[in-house]
């Protein structure tokens, strides 16, 4: 019920993050262009993960929010990851 003052993020931070995101985008386009076989998927997903981490922390302000919101977000991603892994216990071992 308190209206604590917000942390005001300077424009430049956002610009830097955008630059990083664009960089990773081009990187992933480039990486998947070359034949890496199995690793293409892994590489692309890794880059996507980094990108989403940046979006979550900066654009979505998690860095400046209370810890419990961060914990919730982490928890949800973990649950989802666990669900995928368990689903693959079926498909992978068939």
């Amino acid at each position: 019920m308190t209206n604590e003052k917000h942390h005001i993020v300077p424009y430049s931070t956002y610009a830097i993050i955008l630059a990083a995101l664009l960089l990773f985008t081009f990187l992933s386009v480039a990486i998947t262009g070359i034949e890496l076989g199995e690793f293409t998927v892994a590489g692309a997903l890794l880059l996507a993960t980094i990108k989403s981490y940046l979006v979550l922390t900066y654009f979505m302000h998690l860095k400046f929010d209370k810890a419990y919101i961060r914990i919730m977000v982490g928890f949800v991603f973990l649950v989802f990851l666990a669900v995928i892994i368990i689903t693959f216990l079926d498909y992978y071992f068939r």
Partner: protein
Amino acid sequence: MQASSHIPHDVSYLEYKGKHNGLLSWILSTDHKRIGLLYMYSMMTLFLVGVVLGLAMKFELIAPGKTIMDAQDYNAVFTVHGVIMIFMIVVPGLPAVFGNFLLPIMIGAKDVAFPKLNLASWYVYIAGALLVIASLLFGDGSPDTGWTFYAPYSFKTGANMLPAIFGAFVLGFSSILTGLNFIVTIHRMRAPGMGWTKMPLFPWTLYGTAWIQLLATPVVGITLVLVALERIFGIGVFDPALGGDPILYQHLFWIYSHPAVYIMILPAMGAISEVIPTFSQKHVFGYKAIVASTMAIAFVGYFVWGHHMFTSGMSGTAQYTFSILTFLVAIPSAIKVFNWISTMYKGSINVQTPFYWAASFIFVFMIGGLSGLVLGALATDVYVHDTAFVVAHFHFIVFGGVGFAFFAAIHYWFPKMFGRMYDSLWANVGWIIFFIGFLALYSPMFYLGMQGMPRRYYDYLEQFHAANILSTLGSWVMTLGLVIIIINLFRSAKSGPIAGKNPWNGKTLEWTVPSPPPVENFETIPVYHEKDGPYEY
């Protein structure tokens, strides 16, 4: 967020005249208590439909061959029975009725965090319910897939599936919104001084439930959308003819629907955890263990869905992983049972109607839960999967669990909700008849399942006859009990003797406000100090 200043505190929520009169004052009210009752009355109506369908099935099964309906009708009846009971009654049931009514009061708040959203959830609920009902009345025949909508049958059948599927989707939405509202309410609106470890157990279970609602419901939502798209466009995701995998449908369906069973049972356990300490006049035994087991059920319950698919042809690895996880999720339930019974130890037990319901809840819940262990083990599940044994398991635990807890809760909080007392004698008579009927109705199904009678069978072989007769008779006895209970409650709501603020000597916050509570519950928000707590007798 209401303007609060000019709402009087000496008028109960039942009498308060807001902007509107009559029916409008209910269906436009954002008061969490009125919304709770709105849910209750709409559920009761739907519930009666479900009960009648259940009775019709039992009547059909009293003898082999056709009794009152033909096979197509029977298939439609159990489908609609399942859909109504699961999606409209027990999933939203206790949170929407008692959660709405009591959560704010029990944590010392004036309302939920988003009262308007709360009302909107009710409208969404009604919309979903109407859609499902519409699928019965219009179109090419009622849905006939079972409440599980298994692919590929669910997009092959000629029946009118779309409204039913869409209705279930909309109902899911309502459930998500309620869950979201409760989480924010619990995080933000607990009374000053009420730390997490001082929160009563019922709100705790609502909290756990709300998380499951939030994280599981969207998965079934998208799955049902895909089934609908499959029917309309033939996108192929679950159609084996186009390369889809029907087993994947089952995975996604149960990723929701198994957690959903814990959505149902957790608030029920919460209600029982309130009733037992109050009637034992004693601090609940092992508060922290009960809280921890609540959260453990909510969490582990998310990862056991595959136990519904032991014969579907999953990989061996998946099968035994799911089996182990299923067994692990039984432990927290066991912990709860032990703690409840220990709470009675050295108490001063006041045996009243709510306590009868709570004690019989523990009994039927144990039967239901322990039969779940038979289903969780691989060898035995292969034998009884999709037989009457499963039907017995889930009626014992869903209906024995949630239904009994509902009745415990209504008899416990009735004086608070309506300010009046019911007739205890009739309430107890209703209970005992109901209890006996219940056992007679569902116990034979265990036996039938062990004999090998498959479920969803319209007709059966002669060797299954005797047990089915007993079961049908039981359904009549139970209905008699239900009628007595409902009549008693309805009469008492109008004309029972006035109940005081705290007829049972309870210690949670709802017993500190008048019965029925005023519109904004508290004149001044209570504050918890070091020594205060929900169960300090």
